[in-house]
């Protein structure tokens, strides 16, 4: 697939991000735009999955952008620019949750799932597994879920996740270990294990 080929061929983006933040620190609005044309949606997705409220997620994303503008000169280049930005996002999202008593991720109570009726034949098995996994994800504690998000959605290493979350690497590994256990439990109950037995004639 072409995206993959292109991905392997690219270089120096991390440096480019750091250069963008440096320019933002000098008051360069074009650099600010460039940074968030790249990371705006990432920030929004991350925040949304934490606060589970579209309007609030948009407000927080806006706040993150302003915070980056204000704080760019404080960025010391010790971490990647993206983990620095997501660290800010995490901080503001947590404030939003605490301040407004937002109900966090309530997939379990969403009509689709709480309905109780089995999905019709029109819904394929694969969607059922997806749904079960999503429910299992929603049931994780927020710290555990966040590690999974950062690792699998944002593609961060455990070192980078530790940077974003501001905790030791060992804590990140432990959280992932427990999250993985619970998520696999969901897969087990979805009948996936029997999969390889359904040989095609």
């Amino acid at each position, binding site marked *: *697939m072409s995206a993959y080929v292109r991905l392997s061929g690219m270089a120096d983006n991390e440096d480019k991000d750091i250069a963008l933040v440096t320019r933002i*620190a000098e008051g360069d609005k074009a650099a600010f735009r460039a940074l968030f044309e790249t990371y705006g949606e990432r920030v929004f*997705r991350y925040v949304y999955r934490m606060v589970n409220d579209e309007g609030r997620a948009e407000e927080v*994303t806006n706040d993150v952008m302003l915070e980056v503008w204000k704080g760019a000169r404080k960025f010391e280049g010790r971490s990647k620019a993206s983990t620095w930005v997501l660290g800010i996002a995490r901080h503001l999202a947590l404030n939003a949750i605490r301040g407004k008593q937002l109900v966090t991720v309530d997939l379990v109570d969403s009509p689709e799932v709480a309905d109780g009726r089995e999905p019709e034949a029109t819904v394929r098995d694969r969607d059922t597994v997806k749904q079960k996994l999503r429910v299992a994800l929603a049931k994780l504690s927020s710290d555990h879920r966040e590690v999974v998000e950062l690792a699998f*959605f944002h593609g961060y290493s455990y070192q980078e996740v530790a940077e974003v979350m501001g905790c030791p690497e060992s804590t990140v590994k432990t959280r992932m270990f427990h999250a993985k256990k619970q998520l696999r439990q969901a897969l087990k109950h979805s009948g996936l294990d029997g999969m390889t037995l359904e040989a095609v004639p």
Partner: protein
Amino acid sequence: MNHRETQELLAWYAAGTLDADETSAVRSHVDDCRTCREELDDLAIVRAVVAEVGADEPAYDPAILERAMSQIDGIEQAVSAPGAATRSSERRSIFAVFAEWLQWSLTPNMARLAIAGQFAVILGLALALGTMRTEAPEEFVTAAGQANQPAHLTVVFKNGVTELEMRELLLGLGTSVVAGPGATGIYQLRVAEPARVSDVLTALKAHQHIFVAARSTPP
């Protein structure tokens, strides 16, 4: 690396974000441990689901940035910290690379399109694939010592690929379906000539219809 140590790193191995040393240490344990291999299959599914932007998730509104652009005019920037913002990176994540790719391959209009609907999912999938680094685990099971046995691969097709397209692709590569599609759309394939398995895997991974392809345990 023993089983317990491997278990701690397995999810990161599945995400392809371990460094080269950790990757090879995990790989050599996984080669000999069926439990870990099975777990990796599950983790591949978890990763795919997490990486996807769900249909029920709201679209990102680019107007947020426009609003911020108009707000920053009146905002004072903080004082500089000593030694700020200069460091060359030793390590470059695929996430950064993906962001770069996104930036130069999408026009603003496409980016807007990307935010709504199906294309956002495709981007999520691209990200999922993208998180596999060069040193990422390509082989969940070693082929060594199995030279005479038929090799098996696991694939997941992208959404919207037709049965005819699947058939043409699989026949063209000399593979046959031995199991699947399972609950998550995973097919187990058998490669007739074991010697060709690496080539077949490379071809599958590069193919536009394929979401994920990896070596697998024979069913």
